[in-house]
C-alpha cells in the first residue's frame, strides 16, 4: 500500500472514528434525556406515593394538607407552601388556613402576616385564579404580576416565583395550595401536572371526610332510632309485664269468683232441688187438699140431691110394692083355668062376668101408677142430672184453679198405668215398655 493510499485510509478511519464519537455522544444525550425523564417520573411517583400514604395515614384533612405542603416543598426545593380553604357554606371565598411550610419562618414572616390577613374571592390573586379555573396556575414573578394583591402590601415579601393548584372533591374546589420560591421561576409543566394529581389525591380525603361525616350523621340517626326503639321496646316490655301481672291478678280473681260462683251454683242447685221437692210436696198437699175440698163440696152438694133421689127411689119402690100389677097374674091364672070354656066363663060365671070390668079398672089403676112413677122417675132423673152438673161444675173449677207444672212424661205415663193397673189386669191388657 502506498503512502497516499495509507493517508486516504487513515483519513477514512479518522472520519469513521469521528462519526462513531458523535453517534456515541448523541446516544448518550438520548440516554441522558431518558434517564432525566425516568428520574423525574420516578420522583413524581415517589411524591404521589408519599403524599397518598401520608394522606391515608393522616388523622385529619389539616394533617394531610400539612404533610402535602412539606412533601411538595421538599420535592421542588421551594421554601414556602401554604393552604387556602374554601369558606364553609361558600364557593366563592377563600380563607387562609394556619397551615404552612416555611424553610425559614423568620425570612417569610412579613409574607405570612400579609397572607393570614388576606381573603380572596374567585379570580382574585393566585388562589382566586385557581378557585375560578379549577386548574393549577403559575406566576413567574409575583412582584411583576398585576393580579397578586399581597405584593402590594410590602416592599419586600421575600417570594417571587409561585404556583398553586386546587384540591378537588369531585369537581368542586375545596382548597387551594400555593407554593413560593425566592427567585422568579419559569413555568414547569411537569410540576404543574404533578400538582394537579396531588390536588386530586388530596380531594379524595375531603370526599372521604365528607362521606365519613355523612356516615356519622346517618350513624347518629340510626343510634337515635335504635335508642327510640329500645325505649319503645322497654315501654312495651313494661306494659307487657304489667299486662301479665294484671292478667295473673285477674285470673286469680276470676278463679276465686269462679269458685264462689260454683259454690253459689251448688248452693242454688241444692236450694232448687229442695224448692222443687217442697213444691212437689206442696203440690201434692195442695192436690190432696183440693181433692178433699172437692170431695167435701161434691159430697155435700151431691148428698143434698141424693136425699131427693133417695126420696124418689123410696116413693117408686113403695109404689111398686103397692102396685096391683100382680093382680094381672091372678087374672092370667083364671084365664088359664078357664081356657076351655073361656067364653062361657066370661059370660056365664059370675066371677067371670066381672072380670072384664075388673080388668078395665085394673088397667086404669095401673095407668095411674105408671104416671105417678114416671113422674117420680122424671124427678129422679132430674136429681141425677143435678148431681152430674155438680160434678161437672166441680171439674171445671178444678181445671181453672189447677196449678201448672212441668212433669216428666214418662213418670206421668207410669202414674196413669199404675192407676189403671187393676182395669188393665181385668181386661188382660199387657203393657210393653221400650
Amino acid at each position, binding site marked *: 500500500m502506498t503512502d497516499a493510499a495509507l493517508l486516504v485510509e487513515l483519513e477514512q478511519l*479518522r472520519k469513521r*472514528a469521528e462519526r462513531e464519537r458523535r453517534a*456515541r*455522544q448523541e*446516544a*448518550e444525550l438520548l*440516554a*441522558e434525556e431518558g*434517564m*432525566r425523564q425516568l*428520574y*423525574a417520573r420516578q*420522583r413524581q411517583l415517589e411524591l404521589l406515593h408519599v403524599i397518598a400514604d401520608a394522606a391515608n395515614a393522616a388523622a385529619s384533612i389539616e394533617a394531610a394538607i400539612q404533610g402535602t405542603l412539606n412533601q411538595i416543598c421538599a420535592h421542588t*426545593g421551594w421554601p414556602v407552601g401554604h393552604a387556602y380553604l374554601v369558606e364553609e357554606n361558600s364557593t366563592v371565598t377563600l380563607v387562609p388556613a394556619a397551615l404552612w411550610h416555611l424553610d425559614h419562618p423568620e425570612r417569610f414572616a412579613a409574607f405570612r402576616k400579609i397572607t393570614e390577613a388576606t381573603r380572596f374571592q374567585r379570580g382574585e390573586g393566585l388562589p382566586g385564579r385557581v378557585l375560578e379555573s379549577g386548574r393549577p396556575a403559575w406566576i413567574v414573578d409575583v412582584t411583576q404580576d398585576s393580579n397578586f394583591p399581597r405584593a402590594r402590601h410590602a416592599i419586600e415579601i421575600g417570594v417571587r416565583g409561585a404556583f398553586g393548584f386546587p384540591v378537588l372533591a369531585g369537581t368542586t374546589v375545596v382548597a387551594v395550595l400555593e407554593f413560593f420560591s425566592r*427567585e422568579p421561576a419559569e413555568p414547569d409543566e411537569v410540576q404543574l401536572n404533578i400538582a394537579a394529581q396531588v390536588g386530586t389525591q388530596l380531594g379524595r380525603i375531603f370526599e372521604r371526610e365528607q362521606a365519613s361525616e355523612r356516615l356519622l350523621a346517618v350513624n347518629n340517626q340510626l343510634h337515635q332510632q335504635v335508642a327510640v326503639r329500645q325505649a319503645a321496646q322497654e315501654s312495651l316490655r313494661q306494659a307487657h309485664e304489667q299486662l301479665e301481672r294484671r292478667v295473673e291478678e285477674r285470673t286469680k280473681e276470676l278463679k276465686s269468683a269462679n269458685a264462689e260462683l260454683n259454690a253459689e251454683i251448688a248452693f242454688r242447685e241444692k236450694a232448687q232441688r229442695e224448692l222443687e221437692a217442697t213444691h212437689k210436696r206442696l203440690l201434692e198437699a195442695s192436690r190432696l187438699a183440693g181433692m178433699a175440698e172437692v170431695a167435701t163440696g161434691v159430697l155435700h152438694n151431691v148428698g143434698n140431691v141424693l136425699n131427693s133421689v133417695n126420696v124418689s127411689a123410696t116413693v117408686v119402690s113403695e109404689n111398686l110394692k103397692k102396685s096391683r100389677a100382680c093382680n094381672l097374674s091372678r087374672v092370667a091364672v083364671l084365664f088359664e083355668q078357664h081356657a076351655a070354656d073361656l067364653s062361657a066363663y066370661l059370660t056365664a060365671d059370675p066371677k067371670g062376668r066381672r072380670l072384664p070390668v075388673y080388668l078395665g079398672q085394673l088397667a086404669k089403676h095401673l095407668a095411674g101408677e105408671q104416671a105417678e112413677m114416671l113422674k117420680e122417675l122424671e124427678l129422679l132423673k132430674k136429681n141425677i142430672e143435678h148431681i152430674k152438673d155438680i160434678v161437672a161444675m166441680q171439674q171445671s173449677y178444678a181445671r181453672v184453679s189447677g196449678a201448672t207444672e212441668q212433669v216428666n212424661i214418662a213418670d206421668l205415663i207410669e202414674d196413669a198405668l199404675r192407676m189403671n193397673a187393676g182395669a188393665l189386669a181385668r181386661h188382660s191388657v199387657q203393657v210393653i215398655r221400650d
Partner: protein
Amino acid sequence: MKGIIFNLLEEVVTQQFGQSSWDKLLDTAQIDGAFTSLGNYPDEHLFKLVAAASVAMGHSPNEIVRWFGTKAIPLLARKYPAFFQKHQSTRTFLLTLNGIIHPEVRKLYPGADTPDFDFDTSSPDVLVMGYHSKRKLCSLAEGLIEGAAAHFGETVGIRHPLCQHRGDASCRMELSFVKSGSPGS
C-alpha cells in the same frame, strides 16, 4: 466515577492537544478508554490518566486537574445551558450547586457520589465555600470555579485556607469575584 467526567477529559485533551494525545494518555495509563457518560468507572482510572498527563505535560496532578476543571466549564455550559442561563454571576451560579445542579446530576446519574458543599454567604464580597469529598478533588473544584468565573466574565480570587490534602477534615475556600469584562466562551 461517572463516565461523563472521562468524556469531558477526553474532549478537553482532544481539543487542546489532538486525538492522538488522548490515545497516548490511554496507552500510558493502560486503560482501554471506552467510556460512556452514563457508565460507572473506577476512580483509579481518572487518577491514572491524570498521572499520565502530569508526566506528559510536566505539571503536577493537582495542576492538571485544575486545568481540566477550567476547560470543562465551556463544554458543560454548552451541554447543559439551563444551569448557566439563569445566572449573571459566578456567585449565584455556585449557590445553586447543592439545590439544583447536584440534584440534576443525580437525576442523570443515579448513585452519583457528588461532593458536599456548604456556603457562608454572610459577606457580600467573599463567598466562603466548604468542600468535602473522599476523592479530595478540590483542585477540580477550583478549576471549575475559575472556568465558571470566566463564563460569567469574572475573575476569581481563591484562598484555600483549609485543605484535605493538608490533613484538614474538609477544604475551605474563600472566593472573591471581580467583573473582568466580556463573558468567556
